[in-house]
């Protein structure tokens, strides 16, 4: 079967799944939402699945994902309890936690804390049932997977922080895939911070087993004037999982988004950030770390659009690759004609620990304004033998020296993770991964 036929085939298969799910959920939610879902289903077919001819998907083969026999969203099985998820929970960090199992809100595994007058963190599904439709942003879905998410999302978090409110605890959105095989989940999150509000949101994805589930998540973020969001997104899915995550950020004047991304799990994973500024003075910053070893592909995709003057964006991603790990980094910053005084810096560095590891990195700047400060860089390297010798000459065994240098490489990004407990978890992950491959 040719690649094109396989793609058409997969698209038709997914469409049948979407239609079957929609028929089953006919009576769920308000009528406008049902209509929106049907529109999204049509949009899915109209846009079509991406091919390697799409620039944004050039280095990211979809084959592995599409060949899977996804059977549906997998509802109504025995739900996991505290015991099953205990290992995933943060113990020392006080959080307002929303837990979702296979995309569905699990109140019995959540821990809701009142956030203050007019603010809310809860299930999106409930929010949409009772609230106005603007709780979902009106966007024409740009790609098939986002359209599929709109058509099928089961639930997700709805976080709304009222103007000038500062949430003192982190809000954790914990998405856990159970060990049911061949299911797909479509978490949909909506984060809204009104003018001058501030909050920390931790979005985490993890798997309980090594099931071949496919997560297709979308998170929409809107920051009002002067609002500040610290947003951590950590993907530590099971070894056989596929994960596609899309974060869409819309920032008003003088707002700040400080992001941290870690992608360490899954067989196939891709994380996209699309950012728009609507007024001057907004600032977007993100640090990212990814690990890939045997049978792993990890992709990060950034699309930062400066259309108004005086905004800043800074992106710094580091990748650690071992075994036959594969990574893709595709970062694109567009500075439009009117976006004078833009300050943008994009960096990607990769450390390859084996000859079989492979990375495609493509940082791009597209500048149409003439008074801007922009830079971009990419690096791919191996462990420095001089550094290795220095450590060994101090009595540190070679394997341990390699681990120290790998952790050192990742540390710059890890230091940007503002939640100490999560940082320690990730450090342990890095050590375990490089320890096994050094």
């Amino acid at each position, binding site marked *: 079967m040719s690649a094109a036929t396989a793609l058409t085939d997969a698209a038709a298969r997914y469409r049948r799944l979407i239609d079957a799910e929609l028929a089953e959920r006919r009576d769920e939610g308000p009528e406008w939402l049902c209509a929106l879902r049907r529109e999204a289903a049509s949009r899915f077919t109209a846009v079509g699945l991406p091919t390697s001819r799409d620039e944004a998907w050039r280095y990211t083969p979809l084959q592995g994902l599409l060949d899977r026999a996804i059977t549906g969203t997998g509802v109504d099985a025995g739900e996991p309890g505290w015991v099953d998820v205990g290992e995933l929970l943060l113990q020392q960090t006080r959080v307002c936690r929303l837990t979702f199992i296979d995309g569905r809100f699990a109140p019995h595994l959540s821990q809701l804390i009142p956030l203050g007058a007019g603010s809310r963190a809860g299930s999106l599904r409930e929010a949409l049932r009772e609230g106005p439709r603007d709780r979902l942003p009106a966007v024409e879905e740009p790609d098939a997977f986002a359209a599929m998410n709109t058509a099928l999302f089961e639930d997700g978090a709805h976080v709304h922080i009222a103007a000038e409110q500062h949430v003192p605890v982190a809000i954790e959105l914990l998405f856990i895939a159970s060990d049911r095989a061949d299911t797909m989940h479509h978490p949909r999150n909506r984060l809204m911070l009104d003018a001058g509000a501030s909050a920390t949101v931790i979005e985490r994805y993890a798997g309980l087993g090594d099931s071949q589930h496919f997560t297709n998540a979308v998170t929409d973020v809107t920051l009002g004037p002067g609002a500040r969001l610290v947003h951590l997104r950590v993907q530590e899915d099971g070894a056989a999982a596929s994960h596609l995550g899309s974060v869409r950020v819309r920032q008003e004047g003088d707002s700040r988004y400080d992001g941290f991304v870690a992608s360490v799990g899954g067989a196939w994973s891709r994380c996209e950030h699309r950012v728009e500024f609507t007024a001057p003075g907004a600032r977007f910053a993100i640090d990212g770390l990814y690990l890939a070893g045997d049978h792993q592909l990890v992709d990060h995709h950034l699309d930062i659009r400066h259309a108004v003057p005086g905004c800043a964006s800074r992106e710094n991603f580091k990748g650690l690759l071992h075994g036959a790990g594969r990574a893709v980094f595709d970062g694109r910053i567009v500075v439009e004609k009117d976006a004078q005084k833009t300050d943008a810096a994009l960096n990607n560095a990769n450390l390859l620990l084996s000859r079989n590891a492979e990375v495609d990195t493509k940082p791009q700047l597209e500048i149409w304004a003439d008074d801007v400060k922009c830079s971009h860089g990419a690096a791919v390297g191996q462990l420095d033998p001089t*550094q290795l010798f220095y450590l*060994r000459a101090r*009595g*540190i065994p070679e394997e341990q020296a390699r681990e120290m240098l790998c952790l*050192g*490489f990742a540390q710059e990004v890890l230091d940007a993770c503002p939640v100490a407990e999560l940082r320690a978890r990730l450090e342990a992950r890095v050590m375990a991964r490089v320890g096994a491959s050094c």
Partner: protein
Amino acid sequence: MLSIKNLHAAVEGKEILRGLDLEVKAGEVHAIMGPNGSGKSTLAHVLAGREGYEITGGSVTYAGEDLVRLAPEERAQAGVFLAFQYPVELPGVNNSVFLRTALNAIRKARGEPELDAVSFLRRMREKLALVDMREDLLKRSVNAGFSGGEKKRNEIFQMALLEPRLAILDETDSGLDIDALRIVAGGVNALRSPERAMILVTHYQRLLDYIEPDFVHVLAGGRLVRSGDRTLALELEEKGYGWLTGEAA
């Protein structure tokens, strides 16, 4: 303690050391001087076990053992220490984590218990004073963003902490102003002891004004062409290397 016999060594196929002989006993300080390109740094790196330095003949015996057969970390664990001419920057590797890992690796190899955080910190503070080093340098990445003088002080500080039996100081004076040189030399002098031997590799006599060697050797053309006491260094200062390198050629 160290016995080098007819040592030949090559870097990238080019023979740099051509029949070097040296005997170093515990408690002695030897200075090895020589013009640029004579093989001084090659000798230092060969002793520390750097990859890419191929020994093509002769032998190096340290404390009765064949040093050449040991990996760099095994040499360090056995008490060999090289103070680097160009200390390496390790971004992201915390200085105090690095020092504690090194010290505990060496202690473990000697069959001593690992130091806990508190006793380690106490010991570090004690040694910091020796080289007048600020404690905040310990919280930073190893050598990253350190000034030239801070890097060299960090080397001597590591030496103080790791307490080697044989210390090789490769051009420790290079790039130091006079105040920094005094501090570094003061640290080295404080570490002189009857159980410890030192080899100072240097181009200039200047360092020897602050650290008095027991023996001075001139390395030229890959061999030690002249040995003497510290008056030899003064003679070199006056006459330059020409009169000796001429003999070697």
